[in-house]
């Protein structure tokens, strides 16, 4: 069983080992970390966290647009660790998750994958 280390920077750099085969949300909750979540299938961003180093597999997420992905967001309910990773969790990490769509419209390459243009990706 492959295990990786998760460091949570906004929880005093606490470290946990997670199973690479299970969603990070489930693994961290089993360790007693209190995390927000909603749909549990990668569709709603309630559980979004910011990945500041390392790699995850989150190909099952359908909630994030390319702007959010470029800002490092990962959907913990479906993401699996692919290396040791560092996360910022909870709504404190959501500073670049939400934007007012009238004030800051997205460019076409920043949209969700199914409708984004291919330039600059």
């Amino acid at each position, binding site marked *: 069983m492959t295990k990786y280390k998760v460091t949570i920077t906004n929880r005093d750099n606490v470290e946990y080992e997670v199973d690479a085969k299970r969603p990070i949300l489930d693994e961290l909750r089993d360790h007693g970390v209190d995390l927000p979540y*909603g749909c549990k299938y990668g569709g709603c961003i309630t559980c979004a966290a910011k990945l500041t180093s390392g790699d995850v597999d989150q190909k099952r997420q359908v*909630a994030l647009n390319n702007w959010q992905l470029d800002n490092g967001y990962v959907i913990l309910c479906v993401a699996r660790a692919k290396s040791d990773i560092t996360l910022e969790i909870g709504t*404190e990490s959501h500073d670049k998750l939400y934007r007012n769509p009238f004030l800051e419209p997205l460019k076409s390459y920043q949209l969700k994958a199914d409708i984004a243009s291919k330039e600059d990706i």
Partner: protein
Amino acid sequence: MNKVCCGPGYASPIEAINAPREKLLYTIAIYTGTGIQKPDYLATVDVDPDSPTYSQVIHRLEMPGIGDELHHMGWNACSSCHDDSSMSRKYLILPGVRSNNLHIVDTATDPKAPRLYKVIEGAEIKSKADLSGPHTVHCLGSEIIISFLGNAKGEAPGGYLQLDKEFNIIGRWENSMGGIKFGYDFWYQPRHNVMVSSEWAAPNTFMPGFDLEEVGHLKYGRELHFWDFEKREPVESFYLGEDGLVPLEVKFHHNPDSTHGFCGAALSTNVIHWWKNSDGKWQWEKIIDIENEMHPEWPIPLPGVMSAILVSMDDKYLYLNNWLHGDMRQYDISDPHNPVLTGQVYMGGLLGKAPEVNGVEVAGGPQMFQLSLDGKRLYVTTSLFSTWDNQFYPEIREKGGVMLQIDCDPENGGMKVNPNFMINFGKEPNGPSRCHEARYPGGDCTSDIWL
């Protein structure tokens, strides 16, 4: 008054109007998406001015888990079962939009302190009916149907879940979704064998938040659908185009003989009116068009975002909100082709016209509302949906939602904020929460349908 039957609700809209006034109401309040790790809850609000706890939350029923995002709700029975003495308006059904769980709450054993009766797990609904993203609940005689906006993967158009009166899953209600692209709200008028449904978006589109660009990419709806109610299939659709971007709430007249109904197109901020003409054909027209407003600091004009509409029990007034502008409006729709603006008040909103109401800074704008049966008291809340709140009104995280009450004049028209009523959900014991839809134990203006 017809004393023969003793089922729930009222024999007719006029009897509902003359019912005793509401003393309690129920509203849901959310922590999902707020950063507070607590369950969403059903709040009991004291609305009896003679009570020492008037204008306060007097009970909170927490859901069993976090992350539901409670939103709309509905009764197990309404006036459509008035002739059935074995039925009663006892259970309130609270769907979790994100979790997919349906919470069945007993409000009759102790109306002030509702208790959880049963939970239908989201996973069971996904496996038995391939549905997610529950929204509108209507009773259907003794059974219940609930619109779901997606399949188990959160993809549109979803469909309708049917429950029996013991809250067992029967399965899908509809025989076909036809060519319908999206689901949202619905209302039915049995004497005309018609149901009308509207379109928001797929759960995977609206749950993460709103993007204008996704409207342009046809990820949001712009059609209304007319169903053969008995055959349970759509028979006619109206493409509303730019006049009908994101058509959300649908309401028929309460008069069960009427064919007139209304829909609020949220992003276009228009009211669409439909009716059946003398040839038996359904017609539609735009009857209210709220102009975009310039915001002093924004590059593009601001739409009102009409997320809800409501028709008074006497079918005389239509109420609507402009969530981003910050106003509630009352229109006289005695002639449904020619509405007349008769009342308007501001609370919150992005235009800065009423940042403070009754001594409380209002985060958000008027969003959901419920009208008393007699048409005199309109209860208004300010949060739309956690992720959308976080985009447009980020300060609602710290300030929470509010519930206000507007006094309405059903004789001459007119609205004004009741200075004695304010529930500040920013001061809740577990921290700022956000209230949304409200229902009264004795029925209200969005629950009852007559056969």
